[in-house]
Protein backbone atom coordinates (compact mmCIF):
# COMPACT_ATOMS: atom_id res chain seq x y z
CA UNK A 1 0.00 0.00 0.00
CA UNK A 2 1.44 3.35 -1.05
CA UNK A 3 1.79 6.25 1.32
CA UNK A 4 -0.80 8.99 0.63
CA UNK A 5 1.96 11.47 -0.07
CA UNK A 6 3.50 9.22 -2.72
CA UNK A 7 5.36 11.28 -5.30
CA UNK A 8 6.42 9.25 -8.36
CA UNK A 9 9.92 9.50 -9.80
CA UNK A 10 8.90 10.88 -13.19
CA UNK A 11 7.35 13.90 -11.47
CA UNK A 12 10.69 14.81 -9.86
CA UNK A 13 12.20 14.81 -13.33
CA UNK A 14 9.40 16.72 -15.06
CA UNK A 15 8.95 19.33 -12.38
CA UNK A 16 12.72 19.67 -11.93
CA UNK A 17 13.18 20.34 -15.65
CA UNK A 18 10.20 22.70 -15.63
CA UNK A 19 11.67 24.70 -12.74
CA UNK A 20 15.07 24.74 -14.45
CA UNK A 21 13.49 26.14 -17.62
CA UNK A 22 11.63 28.74 -15.60
CA UNK A 23 14.91 29.87 -14.03
CA UNK A 24 16.58 29.94 -17.49
CA UNK A 25 13.67 32.02 -18.79
CA UNK A 26 13.94 34.53 -15.94
CA UNK A 27 17.74 34.72 -16.15
CA UNK A 28 17.66 35.07 -19.94
CA UNK A 29 15.01 37.83 -19.66
CA UNK A 30 17.30 39.81 -17.37
CA UNK A 31 20.34 39.12 -19.56
CA UNK A 32 18.57 40.27 -22.75
CA UNK A 33 17.11 43.33 -21.06
CA UNK A 34 20.62 44.49 -20.20
CA UNK A 35 21.93 44.06 -23.75
CA UNK A 36 21.83 47.15 -25.98
CA UNK A 37 19.57 46.89 -29.06
CA UNK A 38 22.63 47.40 -31.30
CA UNK A 39 24.09 44.12 -30.05
CA UNK A 40 22.24 42.39 -32.89
CA UNK A 41 24.87 43.70 -35.35
CA UNK A 42 27.54 41.73 -33.53
CA UNK A 43 25.94 38.37 -34.32
CA UNK A 44 27.66 37.45 -37.56
CA UNK A 45 27.01 34.28 -39.52
CA UNK A 46 30.31 32.89 -40.83
CA UNK A 47 29.10 32.23 -44.38
CA UNK A 48 27.69 35.75 -44.72
CA UNK A 49 30.94 37.19 -43.38
CA UNK A 50 32.82 35.22 -46.07
CA UNK A 51 30.70 36.93 -48.72
CA UNK A 52 31.31 40.36 -47.24
CA UNK A 53 35.05 39.73 -46.99
CA UNK A 54 35.22 38.82 -50.67
CA UNK A 55 33.01 41.71 -51.76
CA UNK A 56 30.18 39.44 -52.91
CA UNK A 57 27.01 41.51 -53.01
CA UNK A 58 23.98 40.24 -51.08
CA UNK A 59 20.67 41.53 -52.44
CA UNK A 60 17.39 41.74 -50.59
CA UNK A 61 15.08 39.00 -51.81
Amino acid at each position, binding site marked *: *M*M*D*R*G*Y*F*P*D*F*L*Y*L*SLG*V*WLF*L*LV*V*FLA*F*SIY*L*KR*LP*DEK*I*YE*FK*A*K*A*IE*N*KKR*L*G*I*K*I*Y*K*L
Partner: protein
Amino acid sequence: MGEIHPIHLGSIAVTVAVIFVIGTLASRRVKSSEDMLVSGRSLGLFFVACSLAAEYMGGLGTVGVSERAFNEGMGVVWYHIAAATGILLFGLLFAHYYRKYGIQTIPEYLYYLFDVKTWKVNALLNFIAYTFFGVIEIVALGSILAGITGLAIQPAAMIAAVLVTAYLLAAGMWSIAYISMFYMGLIYLGLPLAFFYVMRYAVPELAGSAGAVGFAGLANAMIHRNMDPSFWFSPFSLPPMVILGFFVGGILAVPAAQATINYAFGARNWKIARLAPILSAVLIVPLSIWTGTLGLYAKTAGLTEEPKLALISTLTHIPAWIGILGSLAIFAAIISTADSILFAAAGILAKDLLQRWFNPKVDDHTALRWTRCSILIVGAITLVGAMALPELLKQAYFVYSLRSVTLVVVFLGIYWQRAHPNAAFWAIISGFVAATLYQFNIPVNFRPYLWDMHVSVFTVVVAIPVFVSISLCSKWTSQTASEPPPLYSEEEP
Protein backbone atom coordinates in the same frame (compact mmCIF):
# COMPACT_ATOMS: atom_id res chain seq x y z
CA MET B 1 -15.28 7.15 -28.71
CA GLY B 2 -18.53 6.26 -27.04
CA GLU B 3 -21.95 7.84 -27.36
CA ILE B 4 -22.01 11.32 -28.86
CA HIS B 5 -23.56 13.73 -26.40
CA PRO B 6 -25.39 16.75 -27.95
CA ILE B 7 -23.13 18.88 -25.80
CA HIS B 8 -20.15 17.58 -27.83
CA LEU B 9 -21.60 19.00 -31.03
CA GLY B 10 -22.57 22.20 -29.24
CA SER B 11 -19.08 22.68 -27.84
CA ILE B 12 -17.48 22.22 -31.25
CA ALA B 13 -19.98 24.68 -32.76
CA VAL B 14 -19.12 27.26 -30.08
CA THR B 15 -15.37 26.69 -30.60
CA VAL B 16 -15.71 27.14 -34.36
CA ALA B 17 -17.79 30.31 -33.80
CA VAL B 18 -15.10 31.72 -31.48
CA ILE B 19 -12.42 30.91 -34.07
CA PHE B 20 -14.39 32.76 -36.75
CA VAL B 21 -14.93 35.79 -34.52
CA ILE B 22 -11.22 35.91 -33.67
CA GLY B 23 -10.28 35.45 -37.34
CA THR B 24 -12.59 38.29 -38.35
CA LEU B 25 -11.15 40.60 -35.70
CA ALA B 26 -7.60 39.66 -36.72
CA SER B 27 -8.35 40.45 -40.39
CA ARG B 28 -8.61 44.15 -39.50
CA ARG B 29 -4.87 44.19 -38.83
CA VAL B 30 -3.91 43.08 -42.34
CA LYS B 31 -2.91 45.94 -44.62
CA SER B 32 0.12 44.45 -46.41
CA SER B 33 1.71 41.13 -47.34
CA GLU B 34 4.11 41.60 -44.41
CA ASP B 35 1.11 41.84 -42.05
CA MET B 36 -0.21 38.61 -43.52
CA LEU B 37 3.06 36.65 -43.46
CA VAL B 38 4.84 37.94 -40.35
CA SER B 39 2.16 39.97 -38.51
CA GLY B 40 3.86 43.21 -39.53
CA ARG B 41 6.72 42.13 -37.23
CA SER B 42 4.84 43.36 -34.20
CA LEU B 43 4.10 40.21 -32.17
CA GLY B 44 4.75 40.44 -28.45
CA LEU B 45 6.31 37.81 -26.19
CA PHE B 46 3.15 35.85 -25.35
CA PHE B 47 1.85 35.80 -28.92
CA VAL B 48 5.13 34.33 -30.19
CA ALA B 49 5.53 31.90 -27.28
CA CYS B 50 1.95 30.60 -27.42
CA SER B 51 1.95 30.25 -31.22
CA LEU B 52 5.24 28.34 -31.12
CA ALA B 53 4.19 26.09 -28.23
CA ALA B 54 0.74 25.40 -29.68
CA GLU B 55 2.29 24.46 -33.02
CA TYR B 56 4.62 21.95 -31.37
CA MET B 57 2.04 20.26 -29.13
CA GLY B 58 0.06 18.58 -31.92
CA GLY B 59 -1.29 15.05 -32.09
CA LEU B 60 1.98 13.34 -31.19
CA GLY B 61 2.34 15.49 -28.07
CA THR B 62 -1.17 14.66 -26.81
CA VAL B 63 -2.71 11.43 -28.17
CA GLY B 64 0.75 10.05 -29.04
CA VAL B 65 2.20 10.66 -25.56
CA SER B 66 -0.86 9.11 -23.95
CA GLU B 67 -0.56 6.05 -26.17
CA ARG B 68 3.10 5.67 -25.28
CA ALA B 69 2.40 5.99 -21.54
CA PHE B 70 -0.30 3.33 -21.91
CA ASN B 71 2.23 0.99 -23.53
CA GLU B 72 5.53 1.87 -21.89
CA GLY B 73 4.94 4.03 -18.82
CA MET B 74 5.79 7.56 -17.78
CA GLY B 75 9.28 7.57 -19.29
CA VAL B 76 7.35 9.32 -22.05
CA VAL B 77 7.86 12.62 -20.19
CA TRP B 78 11.19 12.77 -22.01
CA TYR B 79 9.26 13.49 -25.22
CA HIS B 80 8.38 17.03 -24.14
CA ILE B 81 11.69 17.55 -22.34
CA ALA B 82 13.42 16.75 -25.66
CA ALA B 83 11.06 19.08 -27.53
CA ALA B 84 11.80 21.83 -25.01
CA THR B 85 15.53 21.27 -25.58
CA GLY B 86 15.11 21.79 -29.34
CA ILE B 87 13.10 24.96 -28.78
CA LEU B 88 15.60 26.20 -26.21
CA LEU B 89 18.45 25.71 -28.70
CA PHE B 90 16.49 27.63 -31.31
CA GLY B 91 16.19 30.61 -28.97
CA LEU B 92 19.80 30.47 -27.82
CA LEU B 93 21.60 29.73 -31.10
CA PHE B 94 19.45 30.64 -34.11
CA ALA B 95 16.60 33.14 -33.56
CA HIS B 96 18.73 36.30 -33.50
CA TYR B 97 20.55 35.34 -36.70
CA TYR B 98 17.25 34.90 -38.52
CA ARG B 99 15.81 38.09 -37.03
CA LYS B 100 18.87 40.15 -37.97
CA TYR B 101 18.12 39.65 -41.68
CA GLY B 102 14.39 40.22 -41.25
CA ILE B 103 13.55 37.01 -43.10
CA GLN B 104 10.06 35.71 -43.77
CA THR B 105 11.00 32.17 -44.75
CA ILE B 106 13.85 29.75 -44.00
CA PRO B 107 14.75 29.25 -47.71
CA GLU B 108 15.23 33.04 -47.92
CA TYR B 109 17.90 32.82 -45.21
CA LEU B 110 19.66 30.14 -47.24
CA TYR B 111 20.12 32.71 -50.01
CA TYR B 112 21.72 35.18 -47.57
CA LEU B 113 23.93 32.44 -46.12
CA PHE B 114 24.75 30.64 -49.35
CA ASP B 115 23.45 31.25 -52.86
CA VAL B 116 20.52 31.38 -55.25
CA LYS B 117 20.48 27.68 -56.14
CA THR B 118 20.43 26.60 -52.48
CA TRP B 119 17.52 28.98 -51.82
CA LYS B 120 15.58 27.68 -54.84
CA VAL B 121 16.02 23.98 -54.14
CA ASN B 122 15.19 24.43 -50.47
CA ALA B 123 12.10 26.51 -51.26
CA LEU B 124 10.81 23.92 -53.70
CA LEU B 125 11.44 20.95 -51.41
CA ASN B 126 10.06 22.77 -48.36
CA PHE B 127 6.87 23.60 -50.24
CA ILE B 128 6.42 19.97 -51.30
CA ALA B 129 7.25 18.64 -47.82
CA TYR B 130 4.94 21.01 -45.95
CA THR B 131 2.06 20.41 -48.36
CA PHE B 132 2.56 16.67 -47.86
CA PHE B 133 2.68 17.23 -44.11
CA GLY B 134 -0.47 19.38 -44.33
CA VAL B 135 -2.39 16.39 -45.72
CA ILE B 136 -1.21 14.28 -42.79
CA GLU B 137 -2.25 16.91 -40.24
CA ILE B 138 -5.67 17.45 -41.80
CA VAL B 139 -6.32 13.69 -41.67
CA ALA B 140 -5.25 13.64 -38.00
CA LEU B 141 -7.48 16.62 -37.29
CA GLY B 142 -10.35 14.94 -39.13
CA SER B 143 -9.91 11.86 -36.92
CA ILE B 144 -10.23 13.82 -33.68
CA LEU B 145 -13.13 15.88 -35.03
CA ALA B 146 -14.83 12.65 -36.10
CA GLY B 147 -14.29 11.31 -32.57
CA ILE B 148 -15.91 14.37 -30.99
CA THR B 149 -18.82 14.82 -33.42
CA GLY B 150 -19.54 11.26 -34.54
CA LEU B 151 -19.01 12.19 -38.22
CA ALA B 152 -17.07 9.90 -40.58
CA ILE B 153 -13.37 10.81 -40.91
CA GLN B 154 -13.52 12.13 -44.48
CA PRO B 155 -16.28 14.73 -44.01
CA ALA B 156 -14.68 15.66 -40.68
CA ALA B 157 -11.33 16.17 -42.44
CA MET B 158 -13.08 18.28 -45.07
CA ILE B 159 -14.63 20.51 -42.39
CA ALA B 160 -11.24 20.80 -40.68
CA ALA B 161 -9.48 21.82 -43.91
CA VAL B 162 -12.15 24.42 -44.73
CA LEU B 163 -12.05 25.83 -41.18
CA VAL B 164 -8.25 26.19 -41.12
CA THR B 165 -8.10 27.62 -44.65
CA ALA B 166 -10.85 30.13 -43.83
CA TYR B 167 -9.14 31.65 -40.83
CA LEU B 168 -5.74 31.65 -42.50
CA LEU B 169 -7.31 33.54 -45.42
CA ALA B 170 -8.68 36.11 -43.02
CA ALA B 171 -5.38 37.27 -41.55
CA GLY B 172 -2.55 34.74 -41.99
CA MET B 173 -0.11 34.93 -39.09
CA TRP B 174 -2.29 37.41 -37.22
CA SER B 175 -5.09 34.81 -37.23
CA ILE B 176 -2.76 32.13 -35.92
CA ALA B 177 -1.31 34.42 -33.25
CA TYR B 178 -4.70 35.40 -31.85
CA ILE B 179 -6.27 31.96 -32.21
CA SER B 180 -3.20 30.30 -30.64
CA MET B 181 -3.86 32.27 -27.45
CA PHE B 182 -7.37 30.80 -27.45
CA TYR B 183 -6.00 27.32 -28.17
CA MET B 184 -3.44 27.58 -25.37
CA GLY B 185 -6.26 28.63 -23.07
CA LEU B 186 -8.20 25.50 -24.06
CA ILE B 187 -5.14 23.26 -23.65
CA TYR B 188 -4.18 24.75 -20.29
CA LEU B 189 -7.76 24.55 -19.05
CA GLY B 190 -9.00 21.25 -20.51
CA LEU B 191 -6.09 18.91 -19.80
CA PRO B 192 -5.16 20.00 -16.24
CA LEU B 193 -8.85 19.96 -15.31
CA ALA B 194 -9.30 16.42 -16.64
CA PHE B 195 -6.06 15.40 -14.87
CA PHE B 196 -7.24 16.93 -11.60
CA TYR B 197 -10.67 15.29 -11.82
CA VAL B 198 -9.20 11.87 -12.60
CA MET B 199 -6.66 12.04 -9.76
CA ARG B 200 -9.08 13.48 -7.20
CA TYR B 201 -12.32 11.64 -7.98
CA ALA B 202 -11.80 8.79 -10.48
CA VAL B 203 -8.67 7.18 -9.00
CA PRO B 204 -10.21 6.48 -5.54
CA GLU B 205 -12.98 4.56 -7.35
CA LEU B 206 -10.51 2.13 -8.93
CA ALA B 207 -10.41 -1.41 -7.61
CA GLY B 208 -7.48 -1.79 -5.21
CA SER B 209 -6.88 1.95 -4.82
CA ALA B 210 -7.89 1.72 -1.15
CA GLY B 211 -9.74 5.01 -1.59
CA ALA B 212 -6.50 6.94 -1.92
CA VAL B 213 -6.42 9.91 -4.25
CA GLY B 214 -3.65 10.96 -6.65
CA PHE B 215 -0.61 8.93 -7.57
CA ALA B 216 -0.81 6.88 -4.34
CA GLY B 217 -4.27 5.60 -5.33
CA LEU B 218 -3.16 4.98 -8.91
CA ALA B 219 -0.10 3.07 -7.68
CA ASN B 220 -2.29 0.96 -5.35
CA ALA B 221 -4.64 0.14 -8.23
CA MET B 222 -1.65 -0.79 -10.39
CA ILE B 223 -0.39 -3.23 -7.76
CA HIS B 224 -3.91 -4.69 -7.66
CA ARG B 225 -3.61 -5.31 -11.44
CA ASN B 226 -0.12 -6.79 -11.14
CA MET B 227 1.50 -3.69 -12.63
CA ASP B 228 4.68 -2.58 -10.88
CA PRO B 229 4.38 1.20 -10.12
CA SER B 230 8.14 1.55 -9.75
CA PHE B 231 8.37 0.62 -13.44
CA TRP B 232 5.31 2.44 -14.81
CA PHE B 233 6.15 5.66 -12.90
CA SER B 234 9.86 5.49 -13.65
CA PRO B 235 11.31 8.20 -15.92
CA PHE B 236 13.38 5.38 -17.39
CA SER B 237 10.53 3.02 -18.25
CA LEU B 238 11.46 3.48 -21.93
CA PRO B 239 14.65 2.01 -23.44
CA PRO B 240 17.58 4.49 -23.54
CA MET B 241 17.63 4.41 -27.36
CA VAL B 242 14.02 5.58 -27.47
CA ILE B 243 14.80 8.47 -25.12
CA LEU B 244 17.84 9.32 -27.22
CA GLY B 245 15.58 9.23 -30.28
CA PHE B 246 13.26 11.78 -28.64
CA PHE B 247 16.21 14.13 -28.17
CA VAL B 248 17.56 13.67 -31.67
CA GLY B 249 14.06 14.19 -33.04
CA GLY B 250 13.31 17.17 -30.79
CA ILE B 251 16.55 18.94 -31.63
CA LEU B 252 16.43 18.24 -35.37
CA ALA B 253 12.77 19.16 -35.67
CA VAL B 254 12.80 22.74 -34.46
CA PRO B 255 15.56 25.25 -35.28
CA ALA B 256 15.09 25.24 -39.07
CA ALA B 257 11.43 24.21 -39.30
CA GLN B 258 9.51 27.01 -41.01
CA ALA B 259 6.13 26.02 -39.52
CA THR B 260 7.40 25.98 -35.93
CA ILE B 261 9.66 28.99 -35.80
CA ASN B 262 8.17 31.50 -38.24
CA TYR B 263 6.42 33.22 -35.32
CA ALA B 264 9.84 34.40 -34.17
CA PHE B 265 10.14 36.12 -37.57
CA GLY B 266 7.02 38.08 -36.61
CA ALA B 267 8.42 39.12 -33.22
CA ARG B 268 8.49 42.83 -32.42
CA ASN B 269 12.28 42.78 -32.00
CA TRP B 270 15.21 40.39 -31.84
CA LYS B 271 15.09 40.09 -28.05
CA ILE B 272 11.52 38.80 -28.13
CA ALA B 273 12.49 36.47 -30.98
CA ARG B 274 15.12 34.92 -28.67
CA LEU B 275 13.18 34.99 -25.41
CA ALA B 276 9.81 33.67 -26.63
CA PRO B 277 11.12 30.18 -27.49
CA ILE B 278 12.36 29.79 -23.89
CA LEU B 279 8.86 30.63 -22.64
CA SER B 280 7.46 28.12 -25.16
CA ALA B 281 9.69 25.44 -23.66
CA VAL B 282 8.30 26.29 -20.20
CA LEU B 283 4.75 25.95 -21.57
CA ILE B 284 5.41 22.62 -23.29
CA VAL B 285 7.07 20.54 -20.56
CA PRO B 286 4.04 19.91 -18.26
CA LEU B 287 1.92 18.56 -21.14
CA SER B 288 3.20 14.99 -20.89
CA ILE B 289 2.50 14.87 -17.14
CA TRP B 290 -1.20 15.38 -17.90
CA THR B 291 -1.61 13.38 -21.10
CA GLY B 292 0.73 10.58 -19.99
CA THR B 293 -1.03 10.14 -16.65
CA LEU B 294 -4.46 10.13 -18.32
CA GLY B 295 -3.20 7.39 -20.66
CA LEU B 296 -1.83 5.38 -17.75
CA TYR B 297 -5.14 5.76 -15.92
CA ALA B 298 -6.93 4.27 -18.96
CA LYS B 299 -4.67 1.22 -18.74
CA THR B 300 -4.99 0.81 -14.97
CA ALA B 301 -8.77 1.21 -15.10
CA GLY B 302 -8.98 -1.20 -18.07
CA LEU B 303 -10.93 1.36 -20.11
CA THR B 304 -9.62 0.11 -23.46
CA GLU B 305 -7.30 -2.45 -25.01
CA GLU B 306 -6.40 -0.07 -27.83
CA PRO B 307 -3.45 2.20 -26.86
CA LYS B 308 -4.35 4.84 -29.46
CA LEU B 309 -7.68 5.35 -27.68
CA ALA B 310 -6.15 5.72 -24.21
CA LEU B 311 -6.62 9.47 -23.87
CA ILE B 312 -10.04 9.61 -25.52
CA SER B 313 -11.25 6.66 -23.39
CA THR B 314 -10.32 8.48 -20.21
CA LEU B 315 -11.96 11.70 -21.37
CA THR B 316 -15.22 9.89 -22.18
CA HIS B 317 -15.13 8.12 -18.81
CA ILE B 318 -15.28 11.33 -16.75
CA PRO B 319 -18.20 13.80 -16.50
CA ALA B 320 -19.20 15.08 -19.93
CA TRP B 321 -18.33 18.74 -19.48
CA ILE B 322 -14.81 18.00 -18.26
CA GLY B 323 -14.32 15.35 -20.94
CA ILE B 324 -15.45 17.82 -23.60
CA LEU B 325 -13.02 20.46 -22.40
CA GLY B 326 -10.29 17.81 -22.55
CA SER B 327 -11.35 16.78 -26.06
CA LEU B 328 -11.38 20.41 -27.16
CA ALA B 329 -7.87 20.77 -25.74
CA ILE B 330 -6.70 17.89 -27.96
CA PHE B 331 -8.56 19.41 -30.89
CA ALA B 332 -6.82 22.73 -30.18
CA ALA B 333 -3.40 21.06 -29.97
CA ILE B 334 -3.86 19.32 -33.32
CA ILE B 335 -5.49 22.20 -35.22
CA SER B 336 -2.77 24.60 -34.05
CA THR B 337 -0.20 22.32 -35.68
CA ALA B 338 -2.27 21.93 -38.84
CA ASP B 339 -2.74 25.68 -39.32
CA SER B 340 0.99 26.34 -38.94
CA ILE B 341 1.89 23.62 -41.44
CA LEU B 342 -0.56 24.92 -44.04
CA PHE B 343 0.59 28.46 -43.41
CA ALA B 344 4.26 27.47 -43.85
CA ALA B 345 3.52 25.82 -47.20
CA ALA B 346 1.44 28.80 -48.34
CA GLY B 347 4.07 31.32 -47.20
CA ILE B 348 6.84 29.58 -49.13
CA LEU B 349 4.62 29.26 -52.22
CA ALA B 350 3.61 32.92 -52.12
CA LYS B 351 6.88 34.52 -51.16
CA ASP B 352 9.68 32.31 -52.42
CA LEU B 353 8.17 30.64 -55.45
CA LEU B 354 5.53 33.00 -56.88
CA GLN B 355 6.96 36.36 -55.90
CA ARG B 356 10.73 36.16 -55.45
CA TRP B 357 11.46 33.46 -58.01
CA PHE B 358 8.97 34.25 -60.77
CA ASN B 359 7.99 37.89 -60.37
CA PRO B 360 9.89 39.89 -57.75
CA LYS B 361 8.74 43.24 -59.17
CA VAL B 362 5.08 42.91 -58.18
CA ASP B 363 3.61 45.58 -55.91
CA ASP B 364 2.62 44.72 -52.36
CA HIS B 365 -1.11 44.69 -53.14
CA THR B 366 -0.51 41.89 -55.68
CA ALA B 367 1.82 40.10 -53.25
CA LEU B 368 -0.95 40.17 -50.64
CA ARG B 369 -3.41 38.77 -53.18
CA TRP B 370 -0.93 36.02 -54.09
CA THR B 371 -0.50 35.15 -50.43
CA ARG B 372 -4.25 34.64 -50.09
CA CYS B 373 -4.34 32.65 -53.35
CA SER B 374 -1.48 30.48 -52.03
CA ILE B 375 -3.39 29.77 -48.81
CA LEU B 376 -6.38 28.78 -50.94
CA ILE B 377 -4.25 26.56 -53.20
CA VAL B 378 -2.54 24.80 -50.28
CA GLY B 379 -5.90 24.43 -48.49
CA ALA B 380 -7.40 22.85 -51.64
CA ILE B 381 -4.44 20.50 -52.17
CA THR B 382 -4.52 19.29 -48.56
CA LEU B 383 -8.29 18.88 -48.71
CA VAL B 384 -8.10 16.74 -51.84
CA GLY B 385 -5.09 14.87 -50.39
CA ALA B 386 -6.93 14.17 -47.13
CA MET B 387 -9.89 12.80 -49.10
CA ALA B 388 -7.86 10.70 -51.50
CA LEU B 389 -4.67 9.71 -49.67
CA PRO B 390 -5.32 9.13 -45.96
CA GLU B 391 -2.68 6.37 -46.02
CA LEU B 392 -0.05 9.15 -46.27
CA LEU B 393 -0.17 9.11 -42.47
CA LYS B 394 2.11 6.09 -42.52
CA GLN B 395 4.83 8.18 -44.17
CA ALA B 396 4.60 11.09 -41.72
CA TYR B 397 8.17 10.89 -40.46
CA PHE B 398 9.59 11.12 -43.96
CA VAL B 399 8.71 14.81 -44.03
CA TYR B 400 10.88 15.45 -40.98
CA SER B 401 14.01 14.61 -42.96
CA LEU B 402 13.95 17.93 -44.83
CA ARG B 403 13.79 19.88 -41.57
CA SER B 404 16.83 17.96 -40.34
CA VAL B 405 18.97 18.56 -43.41
CA THR B 406 17.98 22.25 -43.45
CA LEU B 407 19.06 22.50 -39.81
CA VAL B 408 22.46 21.00 -40.70
CA VAL B 409 23.14 23.50 -43.49
CA VAL B 410 21.87 26.52 -41.51
CA PHE B 411 23.86 25.58 -38.40
CA LEU B 412 27.08 25.02 -40.32
CA GLY B 413 26.51 28.18 -42.36
CA ILE B 414 26.21 30.26 -39.21
CA TYR B 415 28.95 28.67 -37.14
CA TRP B 416 31.56 27.15 -39.51
CA GLN B 417 33.99 29.37 -41.40
CA ARG B 418 34.52 26.85 -44.21
CA ALA B 419 30.82 26.29 -44.95
CA HIS B 420 30.47 26.57 -48.73
CA PRO B 421 27.37 27.20 -50.90
CA ASN B 422 28.02 24.14 -53.10
CA ALA B 423 28.18 22.02 -49.95
CA ALA B 424 24.80 23.36 -48.79
CA PHE B 425 23.19 22.68 -52.16
CA TRP B 426 24.49 19.12 -52.45
CA ALA B 427 23.83 18.30 -48.80
CA ILE B 428 20.16 19.20 -49.31
CA ILE B 429 19.92 17.19 -52.54
CA SER B 430 21.76 14.15 -51.16
CA GLY B 431 19.83 14.27 -47.87
CA PHE B 432 16.51 14.35 -49.68
CA VAL B 433 17.46 11.56 -52.09
CA ALA B 434 18.84 9.44 -49.23
CA ALA B 435 15.66 9.98 -47.18
CA THR B 436 13.49 8.95 -50.14
CA LEU B 437 15.48 5.76 -50.75
CA TYR B 438 15.52 4.91 -47.05
CA GLN B 439 11.85 5.58 -46.38
CA PHE B 440 10.53 3.76 -49.43
CA ASN B 441 13.01 0.83 -49.28
CA ILE B 442 14.62 1.56 -52.64
CA PRO B 443 16.23 -0.70 -53.81
CA VAL B 444 16.14 -2.73 -50.55
CA ASN B 445 15.04 -2.24 -46.93
CA PHE B 446 18.12 -0.61 -45.31
CA ARG B 447 16.65 -0.40 -41.81
CA PRO B 448 17.70 -3.81 -40.44
CA TYR B 449 21.32 -3.01 -41.40
CA LEU B 450 21.23 0.45 -39.80
CA TRP B 451 19.80 -0.29 -36.36
CA ASP B 452 16.32 0.74 -37.58
CA MET B 453 17.53 4.34 -37.58
CA HIS B 454 14.91 7.10 -37.81
CA VAL B 455 14.74 8.57 -41.32
CA SER B 456 15.60 12.09 -40.13
CA VAL B 457 18.69 10.78 -38.32
CA PHE B 458 19.70 8.86 -41.44
CA THR B 459 19.32 12.06 -43.46
CA VAL B 460 21.66 13.90 -41.11
CA VAL B 461 24.16 11.03 -41.17
CA VAL B 462 24.29 11.41 -44.96
CA ALA B 463 24.12 15.21 -45.14
CA ILE B 464 26.89 16.09 -42.65
CA PRO B 465 29.74 14.18 -44.41
CA VAL B 466 28.56 15.50 -47.79
CA PHE B 467 28.52 19.07 -46.45
CA VAL B 468 31.87 18.81 -44.66
CA SER B 469 33.74 17.07 -47.48
CA ILE B 470 32.51 19.46 -50.21
CA SER B 471 33.25 22.48 -48.01
CA LEU B 472 36.78 21.24 -47.32
CA CYS B 473 37.38 20.66 -51.04
CA SER B 474 35.90 24.01 -52.15
CA LYS B 475 37.35 27.48 -51.97
CA TRP B 476 35.53 30.76 -51.45
CA THR B 477 36.36 33.22 -54.24
CA SER B 478 34.79 36.48 -55.35
CA GLN B 479 32.80 34.45 -57.90
CA THR B 480 31.31 32.14 -55.28
CA ALA B 481 27.63 32.82 -54.74
CA SER B 482 27.80 35.87 -56.99
CA GLU B 483 24.72 34.99 -59.08
CA PRO B 484 22.10 37.63 -58.28
CA PRO B 485 18.55 36.54 -57.46
CA PRO B 486 15.93 36.87 -60.24
CA LEU B 487 15.25 40.52 -61.19
CA TYR B 488 17.15 41.57 -58.11
CA SER B 489 16.77 44.95 -56.50
CA GLU B 490 19.82 46.96 -55.50
CA GLU B 491 18.57 47.09 -51.95
CA GLU B 492 20.63 45.19 -49.39
CA PRO B 493 18.96 43.32 -46.55
